């Protein structure tokens, strides 16, 4: 009986020693430091036309109905880089689709109609873009059809917060026949600001 009691005491001691050894590993030294809030923030490149995103109306603001020889008046679009990243270049493109009135006795095509609108002013900032456009349809003047077929990409860019104007004015060819009455085109000017 005494032997059993002694064994029990020895085993108990071993158990206590074992516990101490295990918990002892937690006491090893360690030291920690931190690199906090390592952060990357993206900039923005945000082109606005007349302080808006999306479409802004320029020539079609009053749904122009021009007579031969009549001017559209000068339309101006303010192009602003509202972002924080510099825009290195601006691409400009023109396109049109046919947009006739309901009552249209003679239906002229969109290309034929675009060709009767002579572009007399087209400037971006201080650059006269008409100098970059050729009379591809050989009708004696630069018109909307010529404009739509010209690559005007790579214009000067816009710094963060900078604004530049695009100005355009068209006039209807004064030799336009009555066959073009009630024919029309919707013009889209697209601007892309590149990083």
């Amino acid at each position: 009986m005494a032997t059993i009691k002694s064994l029990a005491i020895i085993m108990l001691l071993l158990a206590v020693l074992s516990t101490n050894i295990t918990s002892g590993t937690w006491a090893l030294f360690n030291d920690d430091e931190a690199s906090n809030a390592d952060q990357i923030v993206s900039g923005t490149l945000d082109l606005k036309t007349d302080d808006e995103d999306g479409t802004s109306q320029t020539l079609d603001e009053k749904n122009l109905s021009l007579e031969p020889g009549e001017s559209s008046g000068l339309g101006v679009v303010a192009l602003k880089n509202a972002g924080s990243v510099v825009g290195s270049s601006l691409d400009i493109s023109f396109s049109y689709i046919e947009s006739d009135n309901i009552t249209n006795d003679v239906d002229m095509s969109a290309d034929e109609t675009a060709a009767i609108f002579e572009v007399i002013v087209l400037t971006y900032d201080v650059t006269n873009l008409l100098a970059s456009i050729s009379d591809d349809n050989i009708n004696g003047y630069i018109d909307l059809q010529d404009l739509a077929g010209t690559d005007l990409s790579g214009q000067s860019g816009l710094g963060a917060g900078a604004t530049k104007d695009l100005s355009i004015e068209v006039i209807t060819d004064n030799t336009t026949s009555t066959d073009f009455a009630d024919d029309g085109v919707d013009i889209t000017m697209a601007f892309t600001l590149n990083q």
Partner: protein
Amino acid sequence: MKKILGLTISALLVIGAVGGGTYAFFTDTESSPNNTLTAGTLDLNIDGGDIGVTTLSVGNVAPGDSGGDNSTLTNSGSLSGELDISTSAAANTPGGGGGEYEGGSGELGASANITMFIDVDQDSAWSSGDIGLKSDNTTYSHPTALAYDTIDNFASKSWNAVETMVATASDDFTVLWEIPTDVDNTIQGDSVSVNVTFVLEQAAVD
């Protein structure tokens, strides 16, 4: 009978006297004084101090941009230690201010790539002896090419026993980043933030 008993007692007394006489033999005593036990120190510093620092903070980044920065880790203690590194979850924040592409949950962490390595020779370049941290919790070494992955994939990871830093050793922790050119406008104005924790622990803790 009485006489015999008296003699027996005397004999015991004589024996006792002889025994007591052994304490008079030569003795010499020496001592080993001032034995000292001093604990070593394990003290990790980052950029020379014990206060957390910001290793990398860049703003207004755009596709095609890249860069990097580093912090110096120093074992300022007297003991060697194993370096463990871990990252927090990525905090993605969408752009604010009403920009055209702002909103969502913040996509920069899933788009921006980073790589992290211990610049052992502190030459500001990925070179022989340096230790790279991979986004799968493993490490690698030069000349294996630096392994980039998105910030989100590097978040909530840990690397144990990256290296042993002996007393007074200094290494640089370097982070390189890049914004791929094929990301789209969804990252505009977004930000992403991650914390990195370094633990120098006495060897064999793991």
